[in-house]
């Protein structure tokens, strides 16, 4: 990792780390980026592997999208990743794309970064002062801007393992099935029967970063998950969002779709035993 950092910094930052390359190489092909140097991270063993460390799942940054679908530890301990994975690109891309790459890029329309927020994950970063961990809530800063400084390497994702009282749901609304979402969301709730003790809700494609919904979360906390609670959460969601008013999807439309989607997900949460 030291060597990779040195290579990156040696060209004054005119470099890109390459992990799976499934976003970077298209950007190169479109001539949107033309770094002097690509620094290949794929040979760094420490970036690999998925292991349970106590109550936390350590997911190496080079873990592939395809593994989010198939790895038993991810399915068991970080089921939101498992639920989101089928919506991410398509099989050939998932065979190469990595979770670390996706979270590093932090595309606000992308599923995995938002799930870091929903799961309350921590990002392990190797930088100038060695390793540090940044909670997801502090990690996403602005459009494609994260806590990663130039030369920093995202090394692993630390995800709190779900317990028997957790329930989760994921879905998105797209213009064309499988496309970039117009709105997407994941929910991870701690429940006692129908009672919501706490919930984390993260949405994507609603702003310049993945967005948490503290208002909607508060509307759920300590309440029975019934029609009234769902309606209250939907109402509260409005204050959580400040979607862009782009010419193709007006802000009001995104707000509306987000409400519809939240309603669907909470409905589903109530139905799962």
């Amino acid at each position, binding site marked *: 990792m030291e060597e990779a950092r040195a290579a990156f910094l040696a060209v004054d930052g005119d470099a890109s780390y390459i992990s799976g390359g499934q976003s970077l190489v298209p950007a190169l092909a*479109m001539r949107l980026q033309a770094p002097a140097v690509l620094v290949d991270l794929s040979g760094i063993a420490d970036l690999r592997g998925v292991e349970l460390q106590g109550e936390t799942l350590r997911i190496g940054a080079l873990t592939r999208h395809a593994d989010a679908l198939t790895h038993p530890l991810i399915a068991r301990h970080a089921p939101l990743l498992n639920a989101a994975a089928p919506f991410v690109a398509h099989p050939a891309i998932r065979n190469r794309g990595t979770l670390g790459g996706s979270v590093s890029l932090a595309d606000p329309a992308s599923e995995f970064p938002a799930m870091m927020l929903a799961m309350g994950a921590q990002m392990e970063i190797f930088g100038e002062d060695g390793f540090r961990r940044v909670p997801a809530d502090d990690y996403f800063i602005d459009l494609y801007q994260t806590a990663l400084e130039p030369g920093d390497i995202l090394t692993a994702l630390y995800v709190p393992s779900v317990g028997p009282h957790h329930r989760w749901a994921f879905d998105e609304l797209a213009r*064309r099935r499988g496309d970039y979402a117009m709105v997407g969301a994941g929910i991870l709730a701690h429940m006692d029967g129908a009672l919501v003790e706490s919930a984390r809700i993260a949405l994507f494609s609603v702003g310049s970063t993945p967005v948490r919904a503290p208002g909607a979360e508060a509307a759920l906390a300590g309440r029975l998950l019934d029609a009234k609670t769902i309606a209250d959460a939907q109402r509260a969601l409005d204050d959580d969002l400040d979607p862009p008013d782009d010419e193709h999807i007006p802000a009001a439309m995104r707000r509306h779709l987000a409400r519809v989607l939240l309603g669907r997900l909470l409905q589903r949460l109530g139905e799962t035993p």
Partner: protein
Amino acid sequence: MTLTINGHPTDAAPRAGQCLRTFLRDQGWFGVKKGCDTGDCGACTVHVDGEPVHSCIFPAFRAKGREVRTIEGMRGADGLHPVQEAFIAAQGFQCGFCTPGMVMTTAALTQGQRADLPIALKGNICRCSGYRAVEDAVHGIAHTEQAPQDAPSCGVSLPDPANHAVVTGAVRYTMDVPVDDAAHLKILRSPHPHARIRAIDASGAYDVPGVIAVLTHADAPQACFSSARHEVSKDDPDDLRILDDVVRFVGQRVAAVVAESEGAAEEGCRRIKVDYEILPAVFDPEAAMAPGAPILHHKDPATSRIGAPERNVVGEVHGMLGDVEAGFAEADAIYEGNYASQRIQHGHLETLGSIGWLEADGTLSLRTSSQVPFLVRNALADVLSLDPALVRVACGRVGGGFGAKQEMLTEDIVALAVLKTGRKVKHEFTREEQFTAATCRHPVRVRVMLGARRDGTLTAMQIRVVSDAGAYGNHSVGTLFHGCNEVLQLYRCPNKKVDGFAAYTNTLPSGAFRGYGLSQTVFAMESALDELARTIGVDPFELRRLNVVRPGDAMRAYSDHPHDVEFGSYGLDQCLDLVEAALARDESVPPDGAEWATGQGMAAAMIDTIPPRGHFSDARVRLTEDGAFELTVGTVEFGNGTSTVHRQIAASVLATTPDKIRLVQGDTTQLGHDTGAFGSTGIVVAGLATERAARAMAERLLAEAAGAAGVAPEACHLEDGAVRAGATAVPLSALAAQAGGTITVEGHSTGSPRSVAFNVHGFKVAVNRGTGELRILKSVQAADAGRVLNPMQCRGQVEGGVAQALGAAMSENLRIGPDGVVETPNFRSYLMPRFVDIPRTEVLFADTYDRLGPFGAKSMSESPFNPVAPALANAVRDATGVRLTHPPFAPDTVHAALAASGAACE
């Protein structure tokens, strides 16, 4: 680095930044196809250590030490891979360009993934088939039939003769030839929508190692031409130069750099300095025609044949039958509405491109991706002042066309570069260039006014059409006339009026697109008729039955000029009945929930089977010394299936099986003339020439045999491989020997008289009033294709047309921003349908026999597209009460329309 490719140990060094796709193609593995450069289409899918990846976004250096398998490596010691066999049996392709990727993806699917193809095939785009044939291939469902030994093969679902080559990656498309000795050409394109070039400083480009030449307007002939290709080249305005000193849209050529590598050519482009004088630009066709608008083409209308350059009008059409004022006066109900169809791209997976070189005898030779090689040859000779006999244009298999390749968009600049440098030159569009520098369907606004009596009889039809030509005229006049023709010709109404305009704007030039102007007007007219039917309370099927033309009626659109269109056969009545019955018997279950609204809709369309004013084909049949037949046609195969059907036609006449007929096609040196495969003519024109050549051969063989056996020709008949003359069978090889070695005959067709074909589409839909999601519950199309010569292929044409039209109706939109820049330059932002988006369409054929077409056939290439969008809009109207007038009907558009009329729900 070393790696294994298809079992072959390989030692080769990738270039810095090279992707695996180009690296593999450099090694000669041409089965790896380029569709997009960005991992969106799947055509380049290969296996790396057994896993499918998109090789275009896989860095080549990462293949080090790995095992790479391409389509060429799928074949085992004991034959084809089962998935290859399945794609042959189902004919899971049309042009076949996506097939290597489809096969590689399918071969790696798990059982679970096979059960969920909408997700598993999300990464593989097919533009031709509509995916039904792909799905059947994945599931091992067979459709191809064997040629009968003792009966004509017309009417049988014979497979594409290239099927084996397609599924093994052996078939050669335009760029699938080694180009080690070629120079590469890249284009510097205009960043401005309208500018005059004051000066170009190319010295920086020449500093780049490997740059051979920079071409600018100073190198280009002064003569203007049209990129559109037609039999009569003067049909289209001469407003384009190979390189011009005025640029009129963002993306127009400014200069071309020829270099030893693509990289050097591209770097050369970046180093060119251009001094532009920015000119005012106009992006809206109505604004362009208004007084004071910036003028795009200061040209003489007499020589350029631009309709009214001072008003930016490329061409206009005005006509009236009867008296529409009187017609509206006697109407009990009048409907008026405005509709607009958007800009869409053809999306053929093989991008445009050509390779040119000089032969030893000085002939300029081009290998190109074209639907019209003969017309390209003529145009090159014209523009570059060359002897047509010293220009050769030939095609490999072409990876999709849809009208896009009825243009000359790469050949001219390649030819110029070859002549300037003396080098072999290759120029291949990127996918981005396909969106920013090729052509698109004309955006068209239509105002429709209809009048009808209480009983549903139409009393007046009037349309005003404004078509956005973009910066150059090319097909604008042709599409305008065509777009105003059959849409009205379909209805027997005494009073009709048309006012149509095609106007220049500083945007991407529009061009020929499947349907050739009709899809936009049919959308408007068939939507309007649906509203009219609702107003007067007549069922939409009944409204059509009351008003459509029938044999015996004059076919008139907006003038009484004599024409050569006849009812070769008539199956519209059957089409209406078939679709109505299919919708009635449909038992699809709408989704649960009060937010879903369901409804059904239909629309009809008519098309002349051949473009007007002559469409010519030569065909030649040669009996070779060994007694085999060789059929030469001009038509190129681009997924339209003509190579299959031409052989079926010839075999049916010559009493043999199609596999005994060798086909030579798409090469200007092999034949006199062929206008080309556009306007749906592959079967009805070139096929007719084929039939005539085959009949001439049959006649000749009977005469030869009669002479040899000393009997009357009437006593002879053809058998497979011989002519039966009385008691003896004279082998064909003997007849060839008797005639001096070979026998050669020709056939010709002129594209006149023409017939008409019909398509009727029906949908049942569910619309989510909360999200605007539109779900198709049932899709059915009935087609009058005359006698269907190859049911499997014709079904594929219909399904593919429906799928492409659904893309246009539901998701595709080539957006241009306020600065004239294309905002959707890739498949990630330009949303072509994938497997998941396309429902299965029930395809039904009317039972008719066209007396004008070969073996009773009509055209069926473009027309399935035309009734789809209005049928869908009519179904949404039925479900929700909301009339959609501006496709695409994406969820956000639909929801906005529902919300605006109070039909949405929370």
